[in-house]
């Protein structure tokens, strides 16, 4: 029983790991998007060599376990430049997410009907303008459900930063588990926290999607 109480008292400490977890997730998603969207655009609109190179990058990253990417950054860059392991993990998450987001955005972009581009060009817009004003705004709305899915994945994957010693939620939980001698309860608590965050994130993204939705006939 004292074990349970000890875990209960350690919850604040577990929670302090959440901050790092969220930071990792946000960094991974944000840079993943920053890189992923341009990559998708190249994949869809650019010709020959560029598209090929981008595709090669995407397929390679998607064939690798996240752990391998984390270690590549950790041993390769972080140690050489003496950077904190947090950065290695964040970069790894970002690189991985960029590949998956590139595919996600590509699907969304390609699902926007051809007619939209034709109409935009017929008004005199350049390709770039058409993409920027017409295609991308629609593609972003369409991609929200898939992006929501990706966000959940990055959040769960952030737990792998544990492997290089980042002091995120998993690491904190492990300490608590060792100190209190209650691994089961500790890790269930950690699971519950991850679940709660995922749930909240999905909900808010659903709400965002509803607010951004282009009204259809039925809703007028």
């Amino acid at each position, binding site marked *: 029983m004292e074990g349970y109480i000890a875990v209960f008292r350690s919850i604040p400490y577990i929670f302090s790991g959440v901050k790092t977890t969220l930071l990792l997730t946000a960094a991974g998603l944000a840079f993943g998007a920053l890189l992923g969207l341009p990559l998708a655009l190249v994949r869809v609109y650019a010709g020959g060599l560029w598209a090929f190179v981008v595709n090669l990058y995407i397929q390679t990253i998607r064939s690798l376990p996240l*752990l391998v990417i984390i270690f590549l950054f950790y041993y390769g860059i972080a140690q050489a430049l003496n950077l904190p392991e947090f950065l290695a993990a964040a970069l790894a998450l970002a690189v991985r997410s960029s590949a998956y987001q590139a595919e996600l955005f590509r699907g969304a972009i390609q699902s926007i009907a051809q007619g939209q581009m034709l109409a935009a060009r017929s008004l005199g817009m350049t390709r770039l303008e058409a993409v920027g004003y017409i295609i991308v705004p629609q593609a972003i709305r369409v991609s929200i459900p898939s992006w929501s899915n990706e966000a959940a994945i990055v959040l769960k994957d952030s737990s792998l930063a544990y492997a290089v010693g980042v002091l995120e939620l998993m690491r904190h939980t492990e300490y608590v588990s060792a100190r209190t001698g209650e691994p089961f309860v500790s890790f269930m608590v950690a*699971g519950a926290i991850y679940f709660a965050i995922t749930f909240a994130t999905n909900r808010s993204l659903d709400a965002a999607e509803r607010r951004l939705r282009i009204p259809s006939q039925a809703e007028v």
Partner: protein
Amino acid sequence: MSDVPAGTVDYLIFILPTLLKGAVVTIKLSTTAFTIGLALGLPLAMIRVYGRGFIRWTAVAYIEALRGTPLLVQLFVIYYGLPDLVPALQLDRYTAAFLALGLNSAAYQAEYFRGAIQSINEGQLQAALSVGMTPFQAVRHIVIPQALRLSLPALSNEVAYMLKYTSIVFIIAVPDLMARGKILIGKHWRAEEVLTAVAVIYIVLVNTAAKAMGFIEDRYRIPGLQTDRPG
């Protein structure tokens, strides 16, 4: 260590057998996990779609819990947490790994099957009943064959996922590809070379599996039905 070759190529050849042994473990882990996932996931999906009340709620809870939490947490709960709860449940690391990966895969596969089952229009079920089939026969001969085939692209993805995510078992010292790589790095401190070799082997594994699944998809595709690959 004087018997470790200095040159890169020689070193790679030197470590290859060790890494390949790890790759075998990786393959065993993923195929077993995938199979467990299939055996559990299909019934789960059926309960989700056709079940009622408490049992359906349990299936939903299971699926949501396992999909909403990191695989690492699940692994730790099984390996470290279960024996804490019930001392008799101290599983060896291999069993814990199979179990965690398999249970996790079952939850994801259940969702893929659910999507496939629900995309089969209800009219076909009615037609099956109207010809005199029992509900059980209708499910067995009409729903399941189609659901399995419609899920093939998603299952293809799942195989690739399994191959990649088995890498986490190195954390509980199961000697898979990732684990052996890590050990070699610890021994020889030649991380770039080891990691490159490990990466290449994973790439080969994942792409070969994808090709194989592609053949299976082509062979069993229902003519005329479009199937979507999940992102």
